[in-house]
């Protein structure tokens, strides 16, 4: 389980995250939702120790994040984080070199599924294909948890459909996924849990099935209640 406990993050005098706490469990897809600039990406960065926090702590399966944690949690940001002159093949070799949990069979499956050419240079890929390579490099690590920052951002409808398909496949099964997205419609039916972030605080945390069954509302209905009213 990913436990985010009372984290505080300030940029200068601005408090971006104020005592934020929530959990994301293994085997569930947890969606972190908030309008732009609300600190969603900062939370992802903080989990991966890519930005320091002023207070609070983050635990993965009850333990603080260390170098070994990076074998069981991967982060797929919305930017390309491989060297542009690398081909997809070189990027996979790089990952294989450093990650004990790299699963080449899974990488090959995704390469075929996304119809990517391993000889293509990363710099020459379209935005959609870049997002697919990011996904491939993250999901081919046999990690327990996956963090995804805006995986559908700025990409075409067909690529979005392909990426959404990944969420129902064996590639995600049994793993804990924490995702931020604006394109909630693409994966609404797949989300298990929603964490709503507003003004640096957790506004609401709920299981989607409970809201659907008990209140007869969709995720978008709840979002509208929180953010519009």
């Amino acid at each position: 389980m990913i436990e985010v406990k009372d984290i505080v993050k300030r940029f200068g005098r601005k408090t971006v995250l104020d005592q934020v706490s929530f959990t994301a469990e293994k085997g569930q897809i947890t969606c972190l939702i908030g309008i732009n600039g609300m600190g969603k990406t900062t939370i992802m960065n903080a989990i991966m120790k890519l930005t320091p926090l002023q207070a609070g702590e983050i635990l993965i399966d009850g333990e603080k994040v260390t170098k070994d944690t990076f074998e069981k949690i991967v982060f797929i940001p919305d930017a390309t984080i491989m060297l542009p002159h690398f081909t997809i093949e070189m990027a996979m070799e790089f990952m294989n070199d450093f990650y004990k949990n790299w699963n080449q069979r899974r990488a090959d499956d995704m390469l075929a599924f996304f119809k990517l050419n391993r000889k293509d240079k990363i710099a020459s890929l379209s935005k959609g294909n870049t997002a697919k390579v990011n996904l491939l490099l993250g999901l081919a690590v046999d990690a327990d948890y996956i963090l995804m920052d805006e995986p559908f951002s700025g990409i075409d409808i067909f690529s979005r459909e392909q990426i959404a398909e990944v969420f129902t496949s064996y590639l995600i099964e049994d793993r804990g996924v924490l995702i931020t997205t604006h394109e909630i419609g693409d994966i609404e039916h797949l989300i298990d849990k929603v964490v709503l972030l507003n003004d640096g605080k957790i506004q609401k945390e709920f299981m989607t099935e409970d809201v659907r069954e008990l209140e007869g509302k969709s995720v978008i209905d709840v979002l509208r209640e929180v953010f519009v009213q």
Partner: protein
Amino acid sequence: MKNFFKLLNFELNRVMKLLISLMVFTLIVQLIGVFVSKNNYLTQVEMLQQNDGSSVSQVLQSVGYFSFDRVVNSLFFIGPIMICVAAIMFYIFLIWYRDWFGKNTFVYRLLMLPTARINLFFAKLTTILLATFSLVGFQLVAIQIEMLVMKWTVPSEYVMEVTLRQLIEIHPVLSLIAPNQFSLFMSLYGVGVLTVIILFTAILLERSYRMKGVLFGGTFVIAANLLVILPVILNETVFHSFLYNGELLLIVLGLGVIVLASSVWLSKRLLDEKIRV
């Protein structure tokens, strides 16, 4: 340790193109220097022989022998060395900043690797050292090639041969990059390593605290340098040369080791706890 070598190999591959370009540039420009110096000399020789009908011994009395130190003292020789030094200085910063500011933010990938982050620091440091030694080693080989070219193109009666060791002794820049004495070599490169480590820490301070980090980094560089040379200043001013040179050297060496260890410790803390993407 295995991950350190993987990262080192990766960083070396990234610097390889720059290194090879610098080596080729150095060799070409210095060879041009050999030809320019040789042509200038032989023009003088020809003028003396044609206008005054001077014999070889008269020519040698008038313009002297042609030895490699004529080449070494020209801008064609010093220029590429200076450019290589500047390139290495620039690369000390580039090796970090390009991971943040390149087309893709590669620092995400590096910081998320399942390895101790200090390995990044040591891999980058070792890359700078190996790049420096490669350039110095190449320069020494290049001198031998250039000497051979000189011998082939200047008539032997006008050539005075000098050894590489003699060249290093007489030339201030060469004696600085490839000192003949082992102790001097260790001192100079020790100071070099310490300087790179201090600069790396300053860069990490800036990458961790951004604008404030520039101030912290600047203060750290000044404080670290002051601490190392403080005994020398105090010995000259307050203690009026009370300490022997050997004693002074030991104190400076000890302080150097303390600054080095503190700098590495601080860099490790910054990489583990404070760094920002």
